[in-house]
């Protein structure tokens, strides 16, 4: 039985877009040709029985999405990611280490594929993965991921969630999962009988171990500031985590030699928190009273999840 419901799946309109975010913005803002302006609804003007072909320039992204792509908040992780990363480490070093990661991925590609992690492309400095859910029918493609190994491994990789069909970065409102986990938050001060989390249990780089009787709450590995911000993987071993002002005390150099940021680590996180918890679908309905009757409208499909991983 599903215990919780994740966010809704993006509607076809939201998912539709053109080749890149920048191109979409420009296209959406450009005036439509005179012939199209003459018809208030070019799509509707199609003959009955003929599938409408929607010109790319007519597929407008929601205002918030266009704004987030065009002008992310200054200083935000999204803004930093937007700036081109410059390779300052000896390229041969980064390339050799990147090759090692890709070699591992290709060697165990079938195992990763069976888990729902499909390799789309791998060319220095980036690896592109499609994150799918193979255990439900119909299959689900959650999102794509670009893992950018520029300056690896002096710097951790940058991880961005994308539309796997266009490579356009996704904003928070488009997510179909937040990659939730159970987090032991320790015992509240007013109940001293409940065991506390010791320092050992929260050693650097280690999630607090479950403590019997202590309260547990949900936390999301994907973080963002607002619905139109680009979500990032808030995880040690990821550039966006270590660049975030809240994590200045957790340097990448404390994690660099431990395997954090490797493809093995990142793909395992996506499998554990994005793929494995999903158990199925549930349609979402809107009920509206209309003239004494109830009108039911299918609002979309929600993913259901089982027990969240710790």
């Amino acid at each position, binding site marked *: 039985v599903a215990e919780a419901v994740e966010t809704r799946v993006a509607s076809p309109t939201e998912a539709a877009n053109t080749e890149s975010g920048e191109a979409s913005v420009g296209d959406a803002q450009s005036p439509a040709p005179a012939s199209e302006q003459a018809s208030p609804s070019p799509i509707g003007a199609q003959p009955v029985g003929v599938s409408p072909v929607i010109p790319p320039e007519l597929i407008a992204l929601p205002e918030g999405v266009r704004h987030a792509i065009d002008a992310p908040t200054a200083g935000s992780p999204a803004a930093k990611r937007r700036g081109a990363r410059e390779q300052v480490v000896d390229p041969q070093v980064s390339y050799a280490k990147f090759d090692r990661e890709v070699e591992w991925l290709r060697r*165990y590609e079938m195992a990763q594929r*069976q*888990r729902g992690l499909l390799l789309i492309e791998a060319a220095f400095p980036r690896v592109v993965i499609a994150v799918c859910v193979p255990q439900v029918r119909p299959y689900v493609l959650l999102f794509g991921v670009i893992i950018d190994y520029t300056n690896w491994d002096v710097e951790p990789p940058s991880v961005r969630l994308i539309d796997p069909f266009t490579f356009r970065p996704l904003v928070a409102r488009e997510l179909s999962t937040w990659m939730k*986990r159970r987090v032991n938050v320790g015992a509240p001060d007013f109940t001293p009988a409940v065991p506390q989390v010791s320092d050992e249990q929260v050693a650097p780089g280690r999630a607090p171990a479950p403590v019997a009787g202590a309260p547990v709450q949900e936390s999301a590995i994907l973080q963002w500031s607002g619905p139109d911000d680009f979500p990032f993987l808030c995880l040690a071993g990821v550039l966006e*985590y270590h660049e975030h002002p809240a994590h200045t005390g957790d340097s990448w150099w404390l994690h660099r030699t*431990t395997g954090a940021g*490797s*493809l093995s680590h990142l793909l*395992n996180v996506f499998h554990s928190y994005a793929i494995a918890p999903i158990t199925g679908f549930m349609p979402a309905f809107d009920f509206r009273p209309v003239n004494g009757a109830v009108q039911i409208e299918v609002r979309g499909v929600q993913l259901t999840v089982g027990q969240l991983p710790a």
Partner: protein
Amino acid sequence: MGREEEFVMTVANGGTARGGENDKNHVTLTVVVNTVPTAVEANIHWKMRTVMERAFEQSGTTGRDPSQWEFKDANGALINLERTVQSYGFTDGTTLFLTLAAGISG
């Protein structure tokens, strides 16, 4: 090479000797520690925790507590460290994955 020289002595978990091709009590598992594969000669009565420790030892993996790792099979199913190799029915050449868990996030 004589038969005795083929013996591989295992010392963990009380230690047993592996002798030749007819030994039914041992399997060779390929454990991929992060990205490094290592072949672990495991007694079928070992707990999976012992297999994990042996894999860490053989791959020279240090620096993180074993609790910060996830042990999964090829399908991504988490392996119970208290179960034995035999209970999983692993055979020679089975590939398992030891990968860093998420750790602190958010």
